[in-house]
């Protein structure tokens, strides 16, 4: 069952944010990894297969879109969602154009997020 579940990498420089999301997703049965920076996230991505990348946009070392670009070098078809506390800006627009699925405003509507994952899971399973 676990092996069949989606693996999600949550990246947020706020440990509380990352931790609370990881805990929720873990309970909901996802294989969850957490990173607090872009570099840490890329390390995880190199070691583990990840289906979905959920990343904050504004982070100290690199922003969410830059992370997406690096991650795609490892997983070209990596499904990526952005989280942001800020208004839509140029970086996000750019990311969307490059293949990022969607942007979620903070505070997150967790139910909507879970629904989104369920739908995504179906896609990914079919593809597999």
């Amino acid at each position, binding site marked *: 069952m676990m092996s069949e579940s989606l693996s999600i990498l949550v990246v947020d420089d706020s440990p*509380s944010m990352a931790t609370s999301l990881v805990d*929720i997703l873990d*309970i909901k049965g996802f294989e969850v990894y957490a990173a607090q920076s872009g570099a840490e996230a890329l390390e995880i991505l190199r070691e583990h297969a990840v289906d979905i990348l959920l990343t904050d946009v504004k982070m100290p070392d690199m922003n969410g879109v830059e992370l997406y670009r690096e991650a795609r070098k490892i997983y070209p078809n990596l499904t990526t969602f952005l989280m942001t506390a800020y*208004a839509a800006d140029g970086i996000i627009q750019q990311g969307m154009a490059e293949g990022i699925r969607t942007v979620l405003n*903070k*505070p*997150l509507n967790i139910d909507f997020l879970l629904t989104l994952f369920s739908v995504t899971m179906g896609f990914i399973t079919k593809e597999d």
Partner: protein
Amino acid sequence: MKDEGHSETFFTPSFLVRNVLWIAGAALIYFSVARLSLLLIFEPEGIAAIWPPSGIFLSAILLTRRELRPWLVGALFITDFIAEMLAGTPGIVSLFYALILTGDAVLSTWLILRFVGEPITFRRVRELVAWLLLSVVLSNALASLAAAVVSQALLGASFWKSWQEWMASDGVGNLIITPLILSWAAWGRTRWGDRKIKRALEATALFILLVLFNYLAFSLLTEYSLFSLLLTYLTFPFLLWAALRFEVCGLAFASVIMAAIAIYYAFNGHFINNILYQDSPLDTVITVQLYLAFMVAPAIFLATTVAERRQFEEALGASEDKFKHMFEYSNVGKSITQVSGEKSANRALCEMLGYSREELQSHKWQEITHPDDIELTQRVTDALLSGEKDAARFTKRYLHKNGSVVWGDVSTSVRWDEAGKPLYFMTTIIDNTERVQAEEMLRDSEELFRDSFYHSGIGRAHAEPMSGRFLRVNPAFCEFTGYTEGELLQKTLIELTFPEDRESTFSLFRRLALQEIRTFMQEKRFIRKDGAIVWANVSVDMLFDDEGHPMIGTAVIQDITERKQAEQKLKEYSEHLEEMVEARTRELREAQEQLIRQEKLAVLGQLAGGVGHELRNPLSVINSAVYYLKLVQPEASDKIRQYHAMIEQEVHNAEKIINDLLDFARLGSVDRESVNILGLVKRVLERFPAPACVEVSLDLPEGLPKVFADPRQMEQVLGNLVVNAYQAMREGGGLTISAHQQMQMVAIIVKDSGVGISSENMQKLFEPLFTTKAKGIGLGLAVSKKLVEANGGRIEVSSEPGRGSTFMVYLPVDDR
């Protein structure tokens, strides 16, 4: 038969005595000479060899005043009669002889006066000829005829011989005596020059020689020889001498002497014929008479000719002298220029041109003429020489020796000879330099005047002193009034004046003409041709003639319309200044308040943006945390679940506030499109459904045009208004949403029947951070206003506390 006036003068005692003495003197002389002559009668005819009384008679009449002549004639007639009687002539014959002699003298006198006029002085050949022909020949011949008839009839004498003798003796007497008396009577009028003593000596010598020569000639006649005969005629040169040197006076005197000597010798039988022919006494008489006549007549001709010639020369000399004086001493320049170019100039011309006479003569006229006038002078000269004109007058410039220009008013004419050839030019030159210079100055000053008058940028006008009619106007004044020069000259100063200013102008102008004031300056209005009223500063002067009559009014008219208008504006401004300052202060205060509000908004926007975003992260964590707690405690107590819900609700509220803040901060891009009002309203009501206590009614006409706006922003605005309305009607009420077109806008009206807004709150209603609600940070209406304005619309409000509020949103019609 004399008139009284004459008789009075005539008979005054002294006059009478003088006249009587004159007549008596003449009669005495006549009587003496007649008695003497009658001694020389050659028998048998009883006619004197020479009869000088005839000359005395004629001379006496001619020398006597006209009114005295009858008396004289009468007196001499009686004298002659007496003399004849005393000589033993029969009474009747004496009477006839006296009558004939008188008639001869009267006739001669009449003829001479008729053809020559008095006085005759034997200085003109014409007088001499007239006397000889009329008196000596004609009158004498007639008298002799009468005498011959008388002699033959009464004395039995030969008619022919009597006639001959009478005529000869009478004629010779006349010939010798008349010139003597008349020429000597005119002595006073004869000028003999300065050498009187020399003349007297010469005269003396002449007469001594004359007497001597005559005496010798006749003395030698006793010896028969052709030489002695010739000698008698050689007395003639002495007559010529007398004639040439002493004229008729001298000749007549010489003639008398010669006649006396000749008669003396003839009477004594020592005359030519006696010697040569031994003839009868009568022949002797004839010989003497012929001798005298032929000696005297040519000589007297010569003498008269000489006299006339001398007089002519004297007259010519006097005339020449006059001319010379006129030429030389004239005050104006004169010159005579020969056709050959030689010229003589007078003193005035020399002075005028600064040359000496010799210098002037040696210069050609071209050298003393200004180069520019040489052609003119040549033209005039040619015209005169061609006979085109007789005389010319023109003005030309001469060159003074010192190089200065002398203006000459030149009059010149040509003297022609009888053959029609030009002889010389007579030229008169008046120095005109001063006048020409004065004229030039006048012209210059006139030009200056014209220039300053006509080319002045300031209006100038001349007007008649009484009527004020314009006499002269300049273009600047024409432009000022809008009339042409021709139109203005038909108008008066008063006519052009604005009615309210007419009286003052008129009275000032009149006082000026009466010399009460010397000049005046007035700011007044004129009416232009186009009816516009213009202002001018007018200064007026008056010119008076020598008698003090006003001659011309001169006006300088300066356009001050702009200044006046500016003054008027200034006056208006100053009147409204207080108001304006107040209004301006208000504007300023409002602007300042606006500025403060805007600054407040800007700061708030930045703050809101920053804070809003930063708060989202912790809110997101809280949100996730609560979600997790709910997830891990499915069996939690009601109390815990209640708390979970509280946390979730407040996160939601916080998020809403943050969104408001962000909306306000983000004057994000406006994405305008065509929006249907009905759809918009419906979406809003779906999103914000009315609570149960509120009844919603819509009034949206079907044909309402679409508006051009950002639909999401408008939803937010209307949603905000609707939510506000719900909150104002917690106790229930009605919400009406209506719309209508108003010009190019659509008004969407949201009307509630809620608590309303107090008037003190109305003003701050749209300011950020103003709120009457317990909850909320007061950004809703501020954001709404900003969004509406960003979409080209506006938002208004009216409210009645306790009765409800009405919000009106105006949005532009989509007219693309």
